């Protein structure tokens, strides 16, 4: 199971806690994880990736194993620690005022 940590407003939207677990078929890439997340929680469609472009919304960032993956290509495989469920994918809202 892949672990994903969601920001506060998306947790509320999906009705879940801080972290969710979803099944993702290999290869485990950012795109595959986000696709699976949106299938399991359809209310999140469009909130993380723009509908039109499919790209990360500008004020969101992705962190994995203490590294910034916000600008990685979405088809790059995530680290084995994420694929094995030891580390989560963190989806974080950029800090930008009140």
């Amino acid at each position, binding site marked *: 199971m892949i672990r994903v940590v969601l*920001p*506060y*407003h*998306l947790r509320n*939207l999906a*009705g879940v806690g801080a972290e969710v677990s979803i099944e993702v078929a290999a290869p485990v890439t950012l795109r595959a994880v986000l696709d699976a997340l949106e*299938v*399991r929680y*359809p*209310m999140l*469609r*469009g*909130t*993380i990736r*723009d*509908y*039109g472009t499919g790209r990360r*919304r500008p*004020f*969101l960032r992705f962190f994995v194993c203490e590294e910034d993956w916000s600008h990685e290509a979405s088809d790059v495989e995530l680290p084995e620690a994420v694929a094995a469920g030891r580390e989560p994918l963190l989806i974080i*809202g*950029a800090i*930008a005022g009140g």
Partner: protein
Amino acid sequence: MSKVRVLVGTRKGAFVLTADGKRKDWTVSGPFFAGWEIYHMKGSPVDPNRIYVSQTSGWFGQLIQRSDDGGKTWHQPGLPDEALPAPGPPRALPNRFAYDASAETGKPMTTHQWYDGTQHPWEFKRVWHLEPSLTDPGTVYAGVEDAALFRSTDGGENWRELPGLRGHGTGPKWQPGAGGMGLHTIILDPSNPDRIFIAISAAGAFRTDDGGATWKPINKGLVSNFMPNPTAEVGHCVHHVAMHPSRPGVLFMQKHWDVMRSDDAGDNWREVSGNLPTDFGFAIDVHAHEPETLYVVPIKSDSEHFPLGGALKVYRSRTGGNEWEPLTKGLPQKDCYVNVLRDAMAVDKLDECGIYFGTTGGQVYATADSGESWTPIVRDLPAVLSIEVQTLE
């Protein structure tokens, strides 16, 4: 006994204020969608328990919410709450607003004018205004930024653009106002289902007479001195337009500067600012039972968005414009520096018409006597973006 339900959209959530017909004791519920910007919420005139909400965020984009029980519970139209979705393509995409540039139905994606005069691509940002159909609770229109008009015929589950507006030809001359290039006003003509009026900052007012297929600018008579050609066909910063349902050919407009009136469905406008101390402002509305009685909230200027002299005054005209009287009883007359935004005024339909407006300071003021005296229903909400009122039997 009649009831009143006031729908308040704020910078940090939605609130529902309810009272009986006396309008003295109010119940406040909310915040709903706490922390999100609620640009607008409005109930269906056919089914008042059905309320549509525009929920938006700079981080997470646009969502549409709907209540079918008068605001007690909410859901994104067409999405399951808890259960796993069915396999296959999703049935509903309630927050997908895709401009229609298809060969079959759409218009080419042009560019619009940017603040510096260069051309800029159209980009969807948010829904400013939701206007439910007068006859079908499942049909609702959405005015969006960057300016375009969308329609859903399945209760908000899926949206299609009416591309004849954005693509009618003057798009490259439209430009964003200070708050963005939003389509903020949608007025459905109760006497003619094919006629819709809309307004955009800063493009102007437009009308369709064929159900949204084709549109024409209706800005003749508007004068905007910030434009190279002050009487150009488009480019005017129209802040809001109001209409009394019994006289759909008569329109009242609060422009960036100037209060305007049209007696021919927007074909021609004339200024009716009259004796207003300043004719800059955002909100304008018409008394529920007196089609010649108007309300505006004058704001000092385009550079100073607060009441003149720090005194909050609603101005009323009982002559369809030109002659205005200040209404001040119950409103702060010193040290008041709030704004009243374009969609933040509405009227109820009780025998003694109630008028409501919200401020950027979080107050919602109400009058139950056509404006003679005002009382704050609430004082400390987040900045109010929109107000709508439902009169319930």
